[in-house]
């Protein structure tokens, strides 16, 4: 009896002539362990600029995945090689969720950038992320001194972010996770008492809670001087002081920044589950996602570089 490895290997990639892209599964070593990544490349000659998509934290990684996958495919269709991957502790990686930290996310994103460079002929790398993933992308770009950065509703204040996760835990199953181990009802108390709480089926440990709670993106950026697109996702055009401060900081470092606002009634749900059983599995973020994809694709497309020359056109 022999396993038909040739059959399996034949299905490790596929080409989509309609979209003009190819996607290939990779199993690189990232963050010291094996994981799975998908490399999306155009069927036509690729630009020398590639993108790495840095996923978000915990349940947000799952919620934002459809958006990130479609982003990768659209960018590829526009000529860019794009890598998306599972950081250690997520998806098909070797690592354990209990070892996930902000630092591990950044480490793995840096390794992913190297994987992209090794697999393609790119000379410049951009990074993309949403929410927590946006901060990861920014930190990785800062370390890589990469050329471009796209931030969807970035996490600027880690304390506020962690508090919002803790509030989500209160609304889900935190009481069940702690019932058998202690008497705490407040999520933070539960963290102190039990070392973790469950947030939408993902563990939030005390270590990463404290690590991220002390994080401030403005204070953490020190070197990134490339081009960046920051997208504020909101229900109104009311300016946000913290994003204005981020713009100022990036400019101070020598970069150029575009700040766009995507208005959508579902803005407050960005990063949360998009399909709801109570609403017959309606995609509650369809228009929001399309707006993000459109703005991002257009901006990235205007940054394509061929033979050292910027390509001055906007793509769909």
């Amino acid at each position, binding site marked *: 009896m022999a396993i038909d490895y040739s059959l399996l290997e034949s299905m490790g990639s596929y080409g989509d002539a309609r979209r003009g892209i190819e996607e290939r599964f990779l199993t690189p070593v990232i963050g010291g362990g094996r994981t799975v990544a*998908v490399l999306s490349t155009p069927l036509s000659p690729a630009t020398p600029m590639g993108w790495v998509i840095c996923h978000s934290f915990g349940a947000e990684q799952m919620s934002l995945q*459809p958006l990130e996958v479609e982003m990768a495919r659209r960018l590829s269709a526009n000529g860019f090689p794009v890598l998306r991957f599972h950081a250690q*502790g997520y*998806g098909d990686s070797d690592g354990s969720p209990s070892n996930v930290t902000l630092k591990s996310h950044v480490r793995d994103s840096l390794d992913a950038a190297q994987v992209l460079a090794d697999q393609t002929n790119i000379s410049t790398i951009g990074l993309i992320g949403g929410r927590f993933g946006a901060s990861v992308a920014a930190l990785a770009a800062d370390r890589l001194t990469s050329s471009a950065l796209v931030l969807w509703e970035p996490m600027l204040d880690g304390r506020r972010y962690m508090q919002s996760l803790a509030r989500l835990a209160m609304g889900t199953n935190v009481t*069940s996770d702690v019932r058998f181990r202690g008497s705490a009802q407040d999520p933070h108390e539960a963290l102190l008492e039990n070392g973790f709480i469950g947030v939408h*089926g993902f563990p939030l440990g005390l270590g990463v809670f404290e690590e991220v709670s002390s994080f401030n993106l403005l204070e953490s950026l020190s070197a990134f001087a490339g081009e960046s697109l920051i997208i504020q996702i909101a229900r109104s055009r009311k300016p946000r002081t913290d994003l204005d401060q981020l713009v100022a900081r990036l400019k101070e470092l020598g970069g150029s920044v575009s700040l766009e606002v995507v208005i959508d009634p579902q803005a407050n749900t960005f990063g949360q589950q998009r399909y709801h059983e109570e609403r017959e*599995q309606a995609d509650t973020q369809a228009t929001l996602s399309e707006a993000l994809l459109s703005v991002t694709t257009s901006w990235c497309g205007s940054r394509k570089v061929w033979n050292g020359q910027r390509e001055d056109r906007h793509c769909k």
Partner: protein
Amino acid sequence: MPFGDEHLAAILTLPESIPRGLVVLLQGAAATPRSARNQAWTIAARRLAAADIASVRMDYPGVGDSTGVPSFEIKAWNREQALKVTRVALDALQVEKFAVVGQCIGVRTALEVGGRIEGCVGAACILVWPLGPLMEVWSKRRFRDVRRILAQRIPALHRIMRRVMGATRTGQSLRFLPELTQILRSGGHVLFMHGGPEESDRRLRDGAVNLMDEVGSDAGQRLQILPLQAEAPYGTGPLVAQDQAIDAIVAWADKTLPPVPQTAPPPASRPQERQHT
């Protein structure tokens, strides 16, 4: 793998030795990818591999790395896609025996896969709360329609039925999908993991008793019901429930699949799949 104009992403986890069989892991809805929430399927797959059992997990259309548009049609939910992935995995591994594991709406898909492909030796059904995925949709909807018509035409009879239904709570009789009966009749094993409230649990157990009466008393040795710690009707609930499910699936699959590898005939001469209308 290609599926019509689209492509399905799947991961096959192989033991280092020749696999004893294959477990097909099918998660629920809400756009859950192939690893399931918190790597539950990934962890289960690796523990199965440690027991010399191969496994396959997939992204449904429009989810994870699969292309296409997500579908949430409860009837035949992603059935054809799951059948394709299972057939490819069985052909590639050249194993004869497999088991299916479904969670929530994935239970329905798992049972349909198990009922349509020869060689299914068991079905594990993880139901956080609602029993709907196990049930024939017909019985629930048809009865509800009858009650509505009675309410309109014969109010007195309807009032009587309400009193009776209210007392016995048989408004939603538990008629299992026929594939469940079929798997048990053919000597297969069934595991239910259920986290619903007491009333729901009672209905499940009553249904299981009826099932054993239908199939034969020896089915009792092959049908197991385990509690699952859940708090809400949807999702995988608390982390402890995930651990429970993984432990139970691995132990059950280890017991259910043959202890030694059993080679399947080459794909061309494989027995015809069972067809269901």
